[in-house]
């Protein structure tokens, strides 16, 4: 910037008018253009990282929502399933899944013969390997629930084994099968014949959202049911615990507390607490809630308590900001017409601050939903096969959570779990998207500006 000369000497003559740019102006413009370019580059870099991440996750995880299934009629052989022949459930529970597996393989073979499908180059074990190890358990549960099915022939759609599923999705190829000890190319050719006959096919996989977790031998049966339910229970409990405490603390700090060294100290501590790594709360949770209070481990209640500790500071900060945003004139007016301090807060300030509080809470919950570290220590990173019960008792049952399921699937040895893990990330991202959109809509619709 050149300033006008203050001396008596005549100003140096400049070439051209103000419309013709001086070198200095050109330099300024160039630097501005450069700065804008930096900004664009920064955005492009972040967007492309996001794009790469999303493309990888969706590319790897899309398959989890489709599942290979075998459809064939199953004859429920009474001699195997109910040797005593009295259709009593107490007697029939003695037949284990081994018996049901036999029934399934028999029916499968019968269907192959009936449809004239060539099985010459396959051993019995090879053929049986096409049916998921999960199928006998499903059939057993179905039969025990309705014992009159024994002796009938019912149409069944059972899961195909993990490698066959991978073949239909392109994860397993003839080339990889040659090296793979769990499948051979003959089985894949057989699967192709089954596909042409319409016995084997890919279907939409709702079970991915409803099934519980499955062991390492049955990746095809693993689902997110327990994890979604566990996350839902935790979010409900976190909201129930955080919102009242957080709002009450914020109202007191903003509207009633005197401004002195103590309240300053509290404010600094609340801000610090929001930045404490979440694993610390996990250690605290293990020591206090499980070892001291004796709450059951792996339960959603303990998970929610731990995550509440982490979310509470966020809720307090958001609530205080939105209470502070309510103009003083409103308080003055209320107090002026004779309202008490409490009436002022509850009749005027709080309703006006509500949209901000809600938005802050939802965003806090969204962060809490993705939190894994504290759950590691309180036993929620576990294999949980039974759904937690209905509230309130269900809050004490063992459960897992969505991010935890992503982690535990990612460490399993069967490559099919990589697909499941990415599928779980998609579901988690879906929930986060819904929560964030809800926060934006609430803010847009109810926010007031003064």
């Amino acid at each position, binding site marked *: 910037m050149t300033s006008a000369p203050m001396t008596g000497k005549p100003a140096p003559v400049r070439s051209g008018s103000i419309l013709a740019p001086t070198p200095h102006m050109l330099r300024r413009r160039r630097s501005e253009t450069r700065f804008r370019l930096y900004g664009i580059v920064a955005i492009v870099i972040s967007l492309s990282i996001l794009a790469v991440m999303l493309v990888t996750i969706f590319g790897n995880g899309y398959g989890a929502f489709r599942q290979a299934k075998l459809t064939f009629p199953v004859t429920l052989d009474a001699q195997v399933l109910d040797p005593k022949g009295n259709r009593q459930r107490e007697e029939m529970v003695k037949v*284990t899944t081994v018996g049901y597996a036999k029934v399934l393989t028999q029916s499968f073979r019968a269907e192959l013969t009936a449809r004239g499908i060539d099985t010459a180059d396959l051993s019995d074990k090879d053929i049986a390997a096409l049916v998921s190890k999960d199928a006998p358990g499903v059939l057993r549960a179905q039969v025990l629930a309705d014992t009159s099915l024994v002796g009938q022939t019912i149409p069944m759609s059972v899961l195909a084994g993990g490698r066959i599923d991978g073949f239909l999705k392109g994860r397993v190829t003839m080339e990889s099968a040659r090296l793979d000890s769990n499948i051979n190319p003959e089985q894949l050719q057989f699967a192709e014949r089954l596909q042409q006959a319409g016995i084997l096919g890919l279907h939409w996989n709702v079970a991915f959202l409803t099934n519980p977790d499955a062991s*390492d031998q049955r990746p095809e049966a693993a689902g997110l049911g327990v994890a979604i339910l566990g996350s839902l229970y935790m979010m409900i409990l976190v909201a*129930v615990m955080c919102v009242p*405490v957080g709002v009450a603390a914020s109202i007191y700090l903003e509207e009633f507390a005197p401004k002195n060294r103590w309240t300053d100290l509290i404010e600094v501590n609340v801000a610090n607490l929001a930045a404490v790594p979440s694993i610390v709360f996990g250690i605290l949770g293990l020591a206090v809630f499980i070892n001291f209070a004796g*709450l059951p481990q792996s339960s959603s209640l303990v998970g929610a308590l731990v995550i509440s500790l982490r979310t509470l500071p966020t809720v307090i900060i958001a609530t205080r900001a939105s209470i502070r945003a309510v103009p003083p004139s409103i308080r003055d007016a209320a107090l002026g017409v004779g309202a008490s301090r409490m009436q002022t807060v509850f009749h005027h300030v709080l309703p006006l601050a509500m949209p901000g509080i809600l938005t802050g809470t939802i965003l806090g919950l969204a962060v809490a939903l993705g939190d894994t570290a504290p759950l590691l220590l309180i036993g929620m990173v576990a294999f*949980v*096969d039974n759904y937690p019960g209905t509230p*309130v008792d269900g809050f*004490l049952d063992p459960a897992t959570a969505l991010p935890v399921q992503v982690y535990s699937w990612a460490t399993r040895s069967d490559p099919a779990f990589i697909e499941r893990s990415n599928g779980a990330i998609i579901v988690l991202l879906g929930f986060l998207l819904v929560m964030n959109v809800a926060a934006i809509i609430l803010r847009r619709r109810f926010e007031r500006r003064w």
Partner: protein
Amino acid sequence: MTPIKLTVSALAVLAATTSLAAARDQIQITGSSTVLPYATIVAEAFGENFDFPTPVVEGGGSGAGRKKLCEGVGENTVDIANSSSRISQSDIDLCKKNGVEEILEVRIGYDGIVFASDVKGADFALTPADVYLALGGKVAKDGALVDNTSTKWTEVNAALPDQNILMFIPGTKHGTREVFDTKVIEAGCKDTGAYDLFLAKAEGADEKEKKAAAAKACNELRKDGKSVDIDGDYTETLARLDADKNAVGVFGLAFYQNNTDKLKVATVNGVVPSVETISKGEYPVSRPLYFYVKKAHIGVIPGLKEYIEFFVSDDMAGPEGPLADYGLVSDPELKATQDAVAAETPMGALE
């Protein structure tokens, strides 16, 4: 509802739930991540075939699991700790201190530890001596200990591929590392003569202490980046091998069997690792797997006895069972284990 009412009701809910915290009806299992897949397979089958809830199985490591088992007796402590190494005297002492008097030791079978490289890479035929010469911190040369400077496998053994030495081995927190140290590194240390040299200059009050010092010296691996500790699990080792195709990684047999399309296994002393060669004792690098049961919980936690009996039954842990299918080497003395479990015989003192 006003915030105050909400607070009150929330506290009421909390109080109600806390008072309900009683009578656990599912088995709680924790411990080794090597045993974890086997335990989940059994737990799942148990849930399918019995009218008990499916046990909850956690990973987290053998040592941590045994410590949790020894925290005490009661419903908020675990029932079973899976372990890929034998329980130690310090664990038993801790258990005693916390009132856990009787523990059932159940050996479920054996686990092989394999060396594997990228499926498209060269073949490796290793011996413990080769591995020690490649990874040991100091090696014997002309009767003296010198710093290990070899950079290529051919320098270690002319028959090995002409490739740079790079090995991914389990980090020290893993039970697998212990087996790797004793069965591979120490064996190789002895075979190459380095152990005797270490022993000659070891300091200690008696022979036993000297031997321990020599063994410890053997386990000092080189620190110039040729040997990389992996603290994560085998999926991480696999990812590292994928990034560096010339490297050799250490895996569990079960993990390798699930990934034979990506990994090529190395022979050790000329033996290909498999369920058969390990059960015959031909393949040298294997270890027993255990779980430990708190006896005081049998009869209190529903289904606990049934679960452990089911685990060691021939249908599960036998040579034709699903565990063998997944990579567990079935225990030839399984019958004795079944009898001990049926009689609820607690383990005696460690020898």
